[in-house]
């Protein structure tokens, strides 16, 4: 056995003698802050978790004894949501992304290796010394960096098992020397007509270092005394080239730099905005000269430069149409003045100009005429939904913005919330006017802290101006908007589960009808739409429904935002007209497969399906996708190539939904588990005859019998792969995995190309390759964990999968 790869210093600051916290006082403070009402339960638990990192029982008992919250409710709710812990966590949290792109890129190996490395016992999530807690997350939204993990606030991408020891060491070293973190979220105001350096600061851009780049640019501007503002903007869409910088000078065409590192900041600033003071220029020149001498490398500011004439960029952008993402990459998400300068709140203003009595009908007419369908997945006509709520009697109604986007591989809603908070609020306000609601609620995943922060900041700004609260926009009816944060349960994206969650209950769906439009939050008529749906509304009102309806296909109007990722050259967030074909997206926008051929596209995440390349000329709209067995879903689009095992991908998605099932109804709770067991068996080479037929039969029955959409669509990934890639299933039954992915069915062998360089032996984490210099290496199959390291490190391509 090799020596321990990672000899960690003993944990400091975890002295066992720490005095027991004052539970009672903490509980009282939290109750005072969050309320003692039953409905305050989730915020109360979130506050407890925030404070202690877990839920200590004495605090919970105190809460039960001193509020309207029952012990049964506390335990039922706390054990339902993923974010709550019942044991203290480690000092650092490692979030390993389990998103689709990461899965395809080997996230499982990363997780397994981390557990081995950090000596985390099986069945546990924290090492015995409580230094690190491993927390798998559905998606970190950095799909183009896959596989990715995040240690505390730091993101590490393009990982491989052999890189991990270095990453952990680097993290611990950085921890010690870490300077105080700087916020990118200070309020700023754009100065019109001034040159700008725009940096995309969505959380996925941040994950790739845009935050540090932003500060480096600010520093450089300050040092060089350049007359230019460094500006935070929302998502730029081109994830494959971030961090990205746009140099915008009024009257001139913008210049873009992509893949910029903080080290390039000074060179960029200097190139475009020469320092005014010659002395500064001189010293800067000297400094850079010395730097070059010391570092023996040349700063190359021109290398990443591109402009929209760049063919790759123009093809990426060419097919797109930006409605939900209008002005993408240009607006400071939190600058209300700037939003106003870009036609912000004009749509809402126009609605308020209408006569109060005819206003609701007029708005609903516009939405109905536009043909807008809900962007949350199922595509229910928005106009009909709005009218249904409108038609309900009673003075109390609610509007809810569903921002509980949880699909692995989907981060459209997060991007919209982070980049265009005002636009979504405007859309919601228009909906509230249409249905007669005076309260709006954003339900946002807690995993999206930046989105929560920006929406909260935007609401705060509007309240300060008196545009939200007593009088909408200062002149309309009252409208209050608040945020409810999710607590980690994918099923809460289902509207009845979402309502249960806002009401402080376990997020289990219930049978519809009654629909939320009739009986929603607190039993009152409630309009629930997805983030993207609301983001489209202002444009529709402003430009008119006909303009919107002119885009798209017969039954699916307008545009759709997709997260394009996987084995594609250019990944990112794109907004395309409905009716564009899968092939156009993958090959034109995405530039085709990164290497080799692509064989399928997974659309719609765990509720969707895999569409084979031969059907790629299908136009994307709600109906055509449903015919293929997939669904639009919330819009993740992962390109799969020949190295992806379709059985494995089906199992991956089913494992996700099975894990996220609320556990209420029989078909989903037990049925999805049994299906998963069959898939596990197949992937492990223990498949039996009749398994495929049972998968199909049970899958259809789960679809028919489950109570809610999660269960009804859970079998889709399995059913579509069975439909289009049955040969791969059959190969597994015969003991072969054609893609070489299922570890039980493959082995690693060294071919005659081996020169005995020992690189594989050095890197093998389990010592399965004896050190035999200048002789052909052998892999001990019993020890081999199929971590793929040897194959990746071999410079002679002498390791093969059989």
């Amino acid at each position, binding site marked *: 056995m090799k020596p321990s790869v990672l000899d960690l210093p003993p944990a400091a600051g975890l002295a066992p003698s720490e005095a027991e916290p004052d539970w009672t006082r903490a509980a009282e403070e939290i109750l005072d802050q969050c309320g003692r009402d039953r409905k305050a339960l989730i915020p109360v638990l979130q506050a407890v978790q925030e404070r202690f990192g877990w839920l200590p029982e004495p605090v919970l008992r105190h809460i039960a004894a001193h509020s309207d919250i029952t012990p*049964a*409710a506390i*335990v039922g709710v706390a054990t339902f949501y993923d974010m709550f812990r019942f044991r203290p966590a480690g000092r650092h949290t490692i979030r390993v992304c389990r998103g689709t792109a990461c899965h395809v890129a080997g996230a499982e190996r990363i997780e397994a290796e981390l557990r081995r490395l950090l000596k985390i016992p099986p069945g546990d999530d924290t090492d015995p010394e409580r230094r690190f807690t491993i927390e798998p997350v559905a998606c970190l939204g950095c799909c183009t960096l896959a596989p990715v993990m995040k240690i505390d606030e730091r993101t590490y991408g393009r990982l491989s098992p052999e890189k991990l020891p270095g990453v952990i060491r680097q993290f611990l070293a950085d921890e010690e020397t870490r300077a105080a973190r700087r916020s990118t979220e200070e309020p700023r105001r754009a100065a019109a007509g001034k040159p700008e350096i725009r940096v995309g600061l969505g959380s996925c851009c941040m994950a790739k270092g845009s935050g540090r780049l932003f500060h480096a640019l600010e520093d450089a501007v300050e040092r060089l005394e350049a007359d230019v503002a460094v500006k935070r903007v929302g998502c730029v869409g081109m994830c494959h080239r971030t961090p990205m910088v746009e140099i915008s000078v009024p009257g001139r065409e913008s210049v873009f730099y992509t893949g910029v590192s903080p080290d390039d900041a000074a060179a960029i600033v200097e190139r475009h905005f020469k320092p005014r003071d010659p002395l500064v220029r001189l010293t800067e020149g000297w400094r850079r000269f010395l730097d070059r001498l010391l570092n023996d490398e040349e700063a190359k500011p021109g290398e990443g430069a591109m402009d929209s004439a760049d063919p790759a960029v123009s093809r990426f952008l060419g097919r797109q149409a930006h409605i939900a993402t209008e002005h993408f990459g240009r607006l400071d998400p939190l600058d209300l003045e700037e939003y106003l300068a870009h036609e912000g709140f004009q749509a809402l203003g126009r609605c308020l100009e209408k006569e109060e009595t005819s206003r609701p009908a007029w708005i609903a007419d516009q939405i109905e005429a536009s043909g807008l369908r809900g962007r949350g997945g199922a595509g229910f006509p928005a106009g009909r939904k709005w009218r249904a709520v409108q038609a309900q009697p009673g003075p109390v109604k609610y509007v809810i913005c569903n921002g509980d986007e949880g699909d692995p591989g989907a981060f459209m809603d997060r991007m919209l919330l982070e980049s265009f908070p005002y636009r979504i609020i405007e859309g919601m306000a228009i909906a509230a006017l249409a249905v007669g609601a005076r309260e709006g609620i954003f339900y946002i995943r807690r995993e999206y802290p930046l989105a929560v922060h920006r929406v909260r900041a935007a609401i705060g700004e509007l309240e300060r101006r008196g545009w939200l609260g007593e009088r909408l926009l200062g002149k309309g009816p009252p409208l209050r908007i608040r945020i409810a944060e999710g607590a980690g349960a994918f099923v809460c994206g289902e509207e009845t589960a979402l309502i249960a969650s806002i009401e402080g209950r376990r997020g289990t769906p219930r*049978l519809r009808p009654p629909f939320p439009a009739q009986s929603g939050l607190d039993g009152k008529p409630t309009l629930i739409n997805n983030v993207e749906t609301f983001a489209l509304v202002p444009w529709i009102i402003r430009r008119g429904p006909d303009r919107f309806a002119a885009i798209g296909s017969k039954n699916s109007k307008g545009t759709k935002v997709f997260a394009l990722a996987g084995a594609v050259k250019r990944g990112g967030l794109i907004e395309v007209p409905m009716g564009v074909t899968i092939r156009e997206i993958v090959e034109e926008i995405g530039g085709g497969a990164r290497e080799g051929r692509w064989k399928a596209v997974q659309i719609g995440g765990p509720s969707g399906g895999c569409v084979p390349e031969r059907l790629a000329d299908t136009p994307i709209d709600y109906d055509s996708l449903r015919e293929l067995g997939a669904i639009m879903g919330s819009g993740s689009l992962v390109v799969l190539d020949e190295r992806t095992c379709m059985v494995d991908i089906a199992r991956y998605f089913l494992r996700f939904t099975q894990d996220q099932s609320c*556990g209420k109804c029989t078909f989903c*709770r037990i*049925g999805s*588990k*049994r299906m998963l067991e069959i898939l596990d068996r197949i992937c492990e080479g223990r498949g039996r005859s009749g398994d495929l037929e049972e998968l199909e039969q049970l899958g259809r029955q789960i679809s028919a019998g489950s109570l809610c959409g999660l269960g009804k669509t859970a079998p889709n990934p399995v059913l579509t792969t069975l439909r289009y890639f049955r040969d791969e299933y059959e190969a597994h039954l015969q003991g072969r995995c054609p893609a070489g992915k299922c570890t039980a069915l493959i082995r690693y062998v060294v071919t005659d190309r081996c020169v005995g360089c020992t690189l594989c032996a050095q890197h093998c984490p389990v010592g399965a390759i004896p050190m035999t210099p200048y002789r052909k290496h052998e892999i001990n199959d019993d020890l081999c964990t199929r971590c793929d390291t040897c194959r990746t490190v071999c410079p002679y391509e002498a390791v093969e999968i059989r």
Partner: protein
Amino acid sequence: MSSTVTLTIDGRTVEAPQGATVLEAARMLGVEIPTLCHFPGLPPSASCLVCLVKIDGRMVPSCATVAEEGMKVESETEEVFEARRTALELLLSDHTGDCLAPCHRICPAQLNIPLMLRHIQNGQVEKALQTLCGAVSLPGATAWLCPAPCEKGCRRGVWDAPTAIRDEERFLVQTELEKGWTVLPEKDPPLERTAAVVGAGPTGLAAAWRLARGGARTVLFHRGEKGGGSLRAETKRGTLPAEVLEHELARLRALGVEFCPRTELGKDVSLEALREEFDAVILALGPSGREQAGRLGLASGPAGLRAKPHTGETDLPGVFAAGAAVKRTPHIARTLAEGQNAGEAAIAWLRTGRAAAPARPFSSMTGRVERKELPDFLRLAGRIPRVSPASETGVFRPAEARAEASRCLHCDCRSVGACKLQRYAEQYGVNPKRFSGRQRMEIDARRGEALFEPGKCILCGICVQIAERAREELGLTFIGRGFDVRIGAPFSDAIADGLRRAARECVAACPTGALTLREETAVPPPSLDRFSPTPENRAPDA
């Protein structure tokens, strides 16, 4: 707005009150729809989904779907049955716990052994005898001669040693003798039909017992003087006390079996004559039956007289054969079961003109239980080593019998017959092997009135709601999410802490055997002071 709605269910029209559910409307029509999570007076949970019906091409739970004007509901269709069956199969695949204890299932005569042991433990010898004599035709014979296959299946054996079931039987039979009782099984009303049994060996006696119990006038023809066949030989060998055999013959006479001694088939009476005289004939000719087959005009099979398995039907209508005449039987319990089964098939034939094999109740099967799963169950059992009869007669004294009976783990289900899951499983002909799954077998018997077996819980949540309605201090809740959800009391590992007031109500409402009353299990084990537990069979905690 009209106060009723009219809808059709399977093409039949029904007028239901406004707001009624489809389930309620179906019940008005007498259409039976299974339900597990539905409980009158509580809001629908719609979680078990065994009440699915098809409306407008969609499967929906009828318990939560409000009937609407003009609705067309499909309920009694193969497609709907299929969906309900799958729901039941899924629930059963996640069901850990047996309907029938392994001893009960193994017993060829299907004796409910745990029930019998509970009666003994509770000091109710007569009830125990009734249980025994209701299932076994010659309890005296099994008490002395049975190799006790039941004890091989006994789960107590996984912990230390199986419960001494045969010794308990012997104790019961001996008590009956001593008290001068003759305990008879319950008899069906007279059938106005007649049956003849040929042969008074154990098979013939067992068949006659079953026929007489079933209400047929039963005449038993046998060659010898007193009857008993091979059992006579056992008395001579000393393995079966002679008075026990006499007692068994007396029991049969008391049951109404008419013995016709010194009558040999083919010599004193012909098969034709018997068929003429009687509506059914059971041949229990013993090992000599094979040679007689040709003479009687009956076909032979590989091992003896040819008879259909399970029913014992021969080629001649109304003529049945069983026991050693057909094939060798391994032991007395098997032999009795063959005779009883032939008797039962003949009763069915007499009643309906079709011989039917005895129906076995549906039983969920958990299979092997690990030693580490047993400590929970040991809370309900006496923590003493296996008791052997101290007296040289080889028969338990009452205190010994009670002590030994207390060693039963009660791994059977107390809700057999009342359990809706079991009933529907039988009704829908589920295939319990379609899906497999196995949770840890456990029982929460820590304290309180109610026992809770999570493996049998279908998560209907009825108890959660009842506890909430009863304003329990802690109450019950769902714990966890997804496949691993379970019911429990908050901040506690004992269900009893959440059910201080509502335990009985919850037990009564539980659709399966997940919640049962402790008192239904057995009185607490009797004082066992004089049995000193050895370290290896002591239960982990009190």
